[in-house]
């Protein structure tokens, strides 16, 4: 039942996108998000779709994985589309009771759905091509300047690292517990909502218990190795901005700059 979840799943590889410094990629995703948010015309959307499609090709990530990353949010996308379809003024397309679908609504719905999908694909591309640990390293590095105003950069990054590290473990654990309770006759796929909620107890209780036990063990193990926060701590693999990164940053900054400029001029 957990096979659908690909958000935050890293696919190891050697593509250009994989080789970029995670900070470059975070910057690029932000630039893409700004562009996606400022896009309004179909031409702009077409350009962004082509750009992101090009990045997907560069990353050599399988299309099926990219499509799968959209799956958890399919209802949100569908919901947004339907809301837009019925909530715009203009030429009537068809009627459903008191609701009127309009041509403008259809267009807006399609574009907003596309916007959502582009956002998901762009951010999935970051997590698909970047090892989680590198991502947290980058977060720490990017947050370090904020230490001056009291942001605990290292601690936040460490919490993220630990959470990421234990997500697969907890999934495995949940899978095992579900199987064990299935053997004992638990039927989680049938019954009404309340019944299914009640069925979660035999799964969630052991899962939480084991999570707490793990947290306890981990804290002990960190203590035993004299962990005491980020002060004076170095990394085994330091992040490094290479020529490729500088090139990528320049390219994406230029594209984003030009894009926003054209947008503003055309208003």
């Amino acid at each position, binding site marked *: 039942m957990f096979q659908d979840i690909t958000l935050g799943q890293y696919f190891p590889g050697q593509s250009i996108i994989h080789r970029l410094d995670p900070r470059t990629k975070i910057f690029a995703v932000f630039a893409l998000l700004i562009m996606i948010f400022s896009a309004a015309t179909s031409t702009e959307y077409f350009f962004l779709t082509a750009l992101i499609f090009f990045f997907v090709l560069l990353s050599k990530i*399988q299309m099926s994985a990219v499509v799968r990353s959209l799956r958890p949010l399919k209802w949100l996308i569908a919901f947004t589309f339907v809301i837009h379809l019925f909530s715009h003024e203009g030429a009537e397309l068809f009627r459903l009771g008191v609701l009127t679908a309009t041509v403008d609504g259809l267009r807006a719905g399609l574009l907003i759905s596309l916007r959502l999908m582009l956002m998901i694909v762009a951010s999935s591309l970051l997590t698909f091509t970047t090892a989680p640990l590198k991502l947290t390293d980058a977060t720490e590095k990017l947050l370090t300047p904020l230490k001056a105003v009291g942001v605990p950069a290292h601690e936040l990054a460490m919490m993220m690292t630990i959470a990421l590290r234990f997500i697969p473990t907890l999934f495995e654990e949940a899978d095992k517990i579900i199987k064990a309770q299935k*053997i*004992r006759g638990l039927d989680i796929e049938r019954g009404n909502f309340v019944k299914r909620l009640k069925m979660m107890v035999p799964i969630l209780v052991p899962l939480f218990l084991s999570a707490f036990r793990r947290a306890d063990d981990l804290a002990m193990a960190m203590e035993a190795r004299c962990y005491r926060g980020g002060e004076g701590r170095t990394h085994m693999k330091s992040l490094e901005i290479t020529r490729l990164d500088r090139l990528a940053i320049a390219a994406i900054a230029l594209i984003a700059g030009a894009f926003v400029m054209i947008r503003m001029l055309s208003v």
Partner: protein
Amino acid sequence: MIRLNDVSYTYASGTPFERTALFNISMEIGDGEFVAIVGSTGSGKSTLIQVMAGLLPSTGVTSDGRIGLVFQHPEDQLFEESVEAELAFAPKNFGVDGDELNRRIDDAMRQVGLPEEYKSMSPLKLSGGERRRVAIASILSMAPDVLILDEPTAGLDAQSKRKLLETIRRLNEGGTTIIMVTHDMDDAARLARRLIVMHNGRVLIDDAPRGVFRRTELLKEAGLAQPTAMTILARLKQAGVDVSTDALTIDEGEAIIKKCFRI
């Protein structure tokens, strides 16, 4: 009875993480058998038992009778407030209630040697060995015809281990089919009447323990050792003593050595 007809199983099929754990397995496990499944880590043992129990969707598996599966460290699956409620969970799910339910609970507690007064206690307050027994009893209370156990003695102290193996042996004598995954060759040799050696997702040997442990070369290929008694006798033989190495248990080994040295 469990019958596997050309069963294969692939994890994460269709993704870059695809990994085939079982290749074309065919076997039949009859009623009342005591089968031990051995093999090194990653040989497909856990997948095999999950396929047998119907937990992993695969074609070619047929079984009759109720199958109980005890996972490794089954005490991690306890969730009820009392031992009694924990033991009632499975039979209730299968529609058992009233006197029959109480009888099942009492039987299961007796089988694993849990005293009556534990019924009202919280499983979480018990010791590790006791929690293990509660977890196994929580499967026994569903009265399985086939009991599959994945390393049931892992992490137990010597005494708890001996008691648990004795419980399993008695269940088998009572007619329950036992399929047990184990890393302990001595346990496998002593208890099982049939041994299945898994290696890289395939059945390497499927024979009575004596037949399996005679095949030194194949065992080495599977990354497995021989039972202690056999290892000791083999060392003696290597050192030039003229002994038979055909001993499965410590007792058999002792008899052979005594005979050889006339003591």
